[in-house]
């Protein structure tokens, strides 16, 4: 009781300023929007009535983990977290918050990389973790229905028992939740094979800001009846509604998976390998990832459990190529033929095919843990960009060149098959001078090539002001209208995705853009 009175007083006395860097505007502070109310004792009591004591978290230690993002880069000051178990409870919570004008941050596994799942100030955290029931899985249709708080890896195990697999896979699978995956339109390692969430999600149940439970749950593959509203929530990063249930199409689990790790002399050669892979492996190609030598070194150095698959070979670029099919003999023969040709034509210098599942897991562990390795190395500036294939690695090289006098390591890796580069700059700690060499250079370079400044990570709180680099002013205007329509009091995940109205964000000038101030 006392604690709540205390924090309520402190929040109202000070405007909590967070000084963090956003996009092209450097060192401009975001301040807490005064329109939002502050949590009062009666609010907590109301929530306790709905959720019971277990569903209401006010303990500062427990809140600390919920206030911080996975990278340790962003930290909010929420004093209250709620853990509903049903959509009805979410509805009651949001209805109340909407009436009281209390800001809410939906939080799944909290593994996002743009600070989208943590509060900036005292927003209430609405954690979906307790909504973790699988509703049903139809093995003939191949559609899984579940609550949004289910962990991806657990879902994959569940459908795996019935011969299916989740249509996405990412390094965070042990912690991320399907609701978050849908809300961020997560990409991942098998996007190349299974496509986007926009295609795989067959239905959703969403609770809107005013508490309305919007039932868009469906297990149908085809349903052209009216506007496909669920698409608005896929990738909206929790700003248009809170997803409480997901129905998702799961492909059959491939019985034969082959993984190879290849060393190539240059990025241009890697592209030739990709073209050849598409020709030879076509329908069985399930992943095509790349990492550069710097990524390899940093990961090996910081994580002792990672093995180098080719310890005797050193090249600038390495590839992880995976095939998934229904016939081990055929698939292995195809892979072997493709690799032999590539080797004879000297577009690959060396490589290995995993001989058992242990070696497969080991090769994937290397690629999947680069993020973790970078995290252990210190501060990391992360950029997730869609670029034309020919330009992908050029950006890494140019960034490395312009920063060579600084104590940083510039690494490049990513989903080469999707033209998605993960450019990361590793430094001992976060530093404004280092940042000034990265932004807006990286964004402008990307916009010049008509790429995306956030291929799959989303905008979160890191990049709202960069939206202009990849979307026109008219598009952003329309997004604002949708937001106002669905969340007139702006209580859902404020300060995220769309730039604040009172801030000047400059859309990048390409041929079609017009200067805008909102």
């Amino acid at each position, binding site marked *: 009781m006392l604690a709540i009175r205390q924090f309520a007083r402190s929040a109202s006395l000070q405007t909590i300023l967070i000084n963090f860097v956003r996009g092209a505007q450097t060192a401009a502070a975001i301040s807490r929007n005064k329109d939002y109310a502050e949590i009062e004792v009666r609010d907590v009591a109301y929530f306790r009535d709905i959720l019971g004591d277990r569903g209401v978290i006010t303990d500062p230690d427990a809140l600390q983990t919920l206030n911080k993002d996975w990278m340790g880069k962003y930290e909010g000051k929420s004093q209250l977290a709620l853990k509903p178990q049903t959509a009805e409870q979410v509805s009651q919570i949001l209805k109340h918050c909407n009436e009281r004008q209390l800001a809410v941050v939906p939080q799944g596994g909290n593994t996002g990389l743009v600070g989208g799942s943590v509060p900036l100030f005292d927003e209430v955290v609405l954690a979906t973790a307790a909504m973790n029931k699988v509703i049903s899985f139809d093995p003939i249709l191949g559609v899984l229905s579940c609550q949004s708080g289910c962990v991806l890896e657990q879902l994959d195990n569940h459908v795996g028992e019935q011969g299916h697999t989740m249509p996405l896979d990412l390094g965070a699978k042990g912690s991320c939740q399907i609701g978050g995956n849908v809300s961020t339109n997560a990409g991942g390692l098998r996007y190349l094979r299974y496509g986007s969430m926009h295609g795989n999600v067959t239905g959703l149940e969403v609770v809107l800001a005013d508490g309305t439970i919007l039932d868009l749950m469906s297990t149908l593959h085809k349903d052209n009846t009216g506007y496909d509203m669920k698409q608005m929530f896929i990738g909206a990063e929790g700003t248009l509604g809170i997803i409480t249930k997901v129905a998702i199409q799961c492909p059959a689990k491939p019985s034969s998976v082959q993984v190879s790790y290849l060393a190539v002399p240059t990025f241009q050669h890697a592209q030739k390998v990709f073209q050849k892979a598409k020709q030879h492996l076509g329908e069985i190609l399930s992943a095509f990832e790349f990492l550069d030598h710097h990524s390899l070194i940093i990961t090996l150095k910081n994580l002792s459990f990672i093995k180098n*698959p080719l310890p005797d070979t050193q090249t600038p670029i390495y590839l992880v190529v995976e095939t998934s099919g229904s016939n081990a003999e055929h698939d292995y023969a195809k892979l072997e033929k493709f690799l032999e040709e590539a080797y004879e034509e000297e577009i690959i210098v060396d490589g290995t095919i995993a*001989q058992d599942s242990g070696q497969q897991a080991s090769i994937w562990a290397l690629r999947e843990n680069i993020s973790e390795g970078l995290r252990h190395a210190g501060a990391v500036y992360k950029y997730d960009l869609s670029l034309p294939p020919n330009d992908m690695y050029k950006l890494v090289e140019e960034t490395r060149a312009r920063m060579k006098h600084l104590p940083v390591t510039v690494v490049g890796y990513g989903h080469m098959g999707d033209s998605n580069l993960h450019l990361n700059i590793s430094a001992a700690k976060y530093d404004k001078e280092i940042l000034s060499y990265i932004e807006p250079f990286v964004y402008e370079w990307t916009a010049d090539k008509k790429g995306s400044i956030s291929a799959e990570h989303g905008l979160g709180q890191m990049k709202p002001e960069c939206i202009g680099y990849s979307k026109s002013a008219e598009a952003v205007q329309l997004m604002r209208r949708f937001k106002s329509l669905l969340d007139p009091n702006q209580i859902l995940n404020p300060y995220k995705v769309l730039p604040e109205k009172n801030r000047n964000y400059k859309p990048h000038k390409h041929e079609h853009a017009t200067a805008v101030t909102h």
Partner: protein
Amino acid sequence: MKVLVAVKRVIDYNARIRVKTDQTGVELANVKMSMNPFCEIAVEEALRLKEQKVAKEVVVVTVGPKSSQDTIRTALAMGADRGAHILTDTPLLPLNVAKLLAAVVMKESASLCLLGKQAIDDDCNQTGQMLAALLKWPQATFASKVEIDKAAQKARVTREVDGGLQTLLCGLPAVITTDLRLNQPRYATLPNIMKAKKKPIEVLTPEGLGVSLIDGYKRIKVEEPAKRKGGVMVASVAELMDKLKNEAKVL
């Protein structure tokens, strides 16, 4: 010195095992097969001996149906020189396998035979020991470290035993079976994978080797282990005692 390594093709250790509905065995169709992990370690050790110039040639041998050849190819891709495939469709009983291997050892005049300590499908842990007895060679099993003194024709082997580590010194020729911590097997690299295709694999038969196989046992039934029952929370010591006495009947 010629080193013979015996390898076995088994269900991949990460694959989910399902019992066939007719309970005659486990489901093998469409299941990933790999080289037995302990055999892989044996191959790796043999290759290291070759790199140390202790061994001159590494010959890999397997017993089984046609599909077993995959495992030889894997070993050749890792760097073994030649393969020998004893083709037979009979069940792979340790004594039969040991007899066949003994015949090949004599045929090849090998002076060191490396095997995995056990196969992960039957967990027998018998073949290496039986082979040594048939050949009347010394045996050092569960090896976690192997040092060969070529000049003195001796092997110093550290073994993992229940009480800790035991070091044996034995004369060559000998049989050594490998344990998990002996080494970490290498990846098969492309140049070796391609070279492996040209390396010879000799196909042999039990009859050709002059070995008569015993038909020792008949598998009656294979079933899954009983599902683990969930635990029960008890409210007091008295309740616990009651349950242990009257339900579990262990007191």
